[in-house]
């Protein structure tokens, strides 16, 4: 692992925080493959867990009894779970189970769909996100989408757009360059594009475009990074690069990833939340959820009985 240059400062690390700053992660220490003594629940002995146990974990967001309705349809039903910095949280479940809706509600993107209604509360550092102005919230909780979607401008301008004031173009390139380079470095893209920063971003390869989108999301110096199936449009090699990147990022930002790919969740997540038809069926450490699930439904899903 190469040293990351200029990592963003971890903000608001308050020792007086009522929540213990160091939460013991339940689960089995990871040592390369699945936990020892795992019952034959899933076929996950083949998938390698190549990540080390988290160094620390700080509770950043708290999802508290959240229900989301689209008109009469209840997409998310009373879900509660913590989101911690230092860890990767994966949301898994079959299509239409509400995982993407839940993810999008974390930075109030669901509000853009007029029909969506949210009850319960989501707190970011103990402040209800409904009390945070949306544009400020979305700089603290940024998001990467399923389809790579760089803006139709140069690689440099994609990042600079995030750094500049709203619609302004006034800030000089020279002033922004260090921040742009730092964001690209954190997303592991700088070495590949440093000579072509003026090239159109849509000419990059799919995997590079997605890393540019991650760099763009990191440029806002967020506290939480949301990823909505970031690898589903990519080839296996690009996926591997992005998975490595996600694991590297977990110390600097709290990472939440929605994925359809169970192996991926197993490879990179520390905690996994399994959702089914809007319910949170099980929230557990990845090794437990995949190897010794507490719920029958979870066992069926991770063993491929449905989905």
């Amino acid at each position: 692992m190469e040293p990351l240059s200029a990592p963003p400062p971890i903000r608001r690390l308050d020792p007086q925080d009522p929540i213990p700053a160091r939460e013991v992660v339940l689960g089995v220490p990871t040592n390369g493959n699945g936990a020892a003594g795992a019952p034959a629940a899933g076929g996950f002995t083949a998938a390698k867990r190549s990540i080390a146990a988290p160094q620390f974990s700080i509770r950043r967001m708290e999802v508290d009894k959240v229900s989301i309705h689209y008109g009469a349809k209840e997409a998310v039903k009373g879900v509660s779970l913590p989101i911690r910095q230092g860890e990767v949280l994966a949301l898994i479940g079959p299509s239409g189970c509400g995982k993407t809706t839940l993810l999008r509600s974390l930075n109030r993107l669901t509000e853009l769909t007029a029909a969506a209604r949210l009850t319960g509360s989501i707190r970011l550092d103990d402040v209800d996100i409904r009390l945070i102005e949306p544009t400020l919230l979305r700089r603290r909780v940024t998001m990467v989408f399923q389809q790579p979607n760089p803006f139709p401008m140069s690689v440099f301008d994609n990042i600079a757009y995030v750094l500049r004031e709203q619609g302004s173009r006034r800030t000089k390139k020279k002033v922004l360059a260090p921040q742009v380079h730092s964001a690209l470095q954190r997303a592991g893209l700088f070495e590949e594009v440093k000579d072509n920063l003026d090239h159109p971003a849509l000419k990059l390869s799919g995997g590079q475009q997605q890393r540019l989108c991650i760099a763009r999301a990191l440029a806002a110096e967020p506290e939480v990074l949301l990823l909505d199936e970031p690898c589903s449009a990519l080839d296996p090699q690009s996926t591997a690069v992005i998975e490595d990147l996600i694991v590297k990022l977990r110390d600097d930002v709290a990472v939440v990833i929605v994925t359809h790919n169970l192996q991926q969740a197993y490879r990179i997540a520390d905690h996994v939340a399994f959702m089914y038809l809007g319910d949170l069926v099980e929230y557990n450490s990845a090794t437990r959820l995949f190897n010794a699930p507490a719920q029958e439904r979870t066992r069926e899903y991770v063993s491929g009985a449905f989905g």
Partner: protein
Amino acid sequence: MAPSVATPPPERPQAAPPQGKAPTKAVEGSSTWSMLDRIGLAFCWALGLLFCAIAVAIVVYLFLQGVKFLKLDQLTTPAATGFSETETGGFSDALIGTIIVAVMGISLALPVGIAIAVWLVEYGRPAPLARVTELTIEAIAGIPSIVLALFGTVIFSSTALGFLSRSNEGVVFGRSFFAAAAMLSLVALPLVVASTRQGLESIPRHVREASYAVGKTKAATIRRILLPTARPQVATGMILGLGRIIGDTAIILVLLGATQNFAPVEGAVFPFDYLRGAGTTLTNFVYEASPTGNLNQPQKAYAAAFVLLLMVLGLNAAADLVHRRARKAGTWSH
């Protein structure tokens, strides 16, 4: 259970191998189609070729006539009264008039059209108001320009708008470049709106959300992401609108006064003296110089029509270029 001994599949009737040279590739031919489909296909081919032939005939004919009758000094001399073709001058006032109404008309239609399209696509609430706006734009697109022109005379003859045209002892003439350009902008407006809307609607939703998801406001997203992305379509709408403005005759006839020369208003400051006065355009000149018109000089009509045709073809080529360049820049998957 299937029997353990596999029975060979029944022999399928094979098409008789063609005599002579062996084909190198199997292709679908229309020989297997029903008679109705084959007649339909033949009809499509015939009509397509017919319309190509008509278009080519018009362009070639006008080109030949134009080359024969167009003299460069016609582009620089205004029309004059006289008894023979050599004395009546050229059509420089008409050419400049065309350029003036095109620039004025499109500079009204473009901002208004873009604003309407952005509102319809990005806001569009309350929904009934959006629907009414849509219907209004469609209605404007459907109104014949002569009706727009008639309506324009009512508006621009009002005393309050006297400053936009010539007025004499309280009577407002109501015909000027301002009046004509204002109504011509309505002719171009639906094209600008439709094209811009198409451009905005073709941007996937997740691209907008990517901008919101880094804390950008709707206004910033529209200005920095959506409108720049839709630029090729906006340009197409503008070029199509320009083509319609340049080609319109009815509004020019009714609202520009359709004089043979500029008729500036005395005592007004340049350029308002010209813009408040009456004038003419190439379409009007072609009409007047045709055998139906007062001038009846078909040779000059051909020359002016040729210039008009060149302008329109130039605009079409520009639209094509803009689109081809946009396609090269790459896009997102939906």
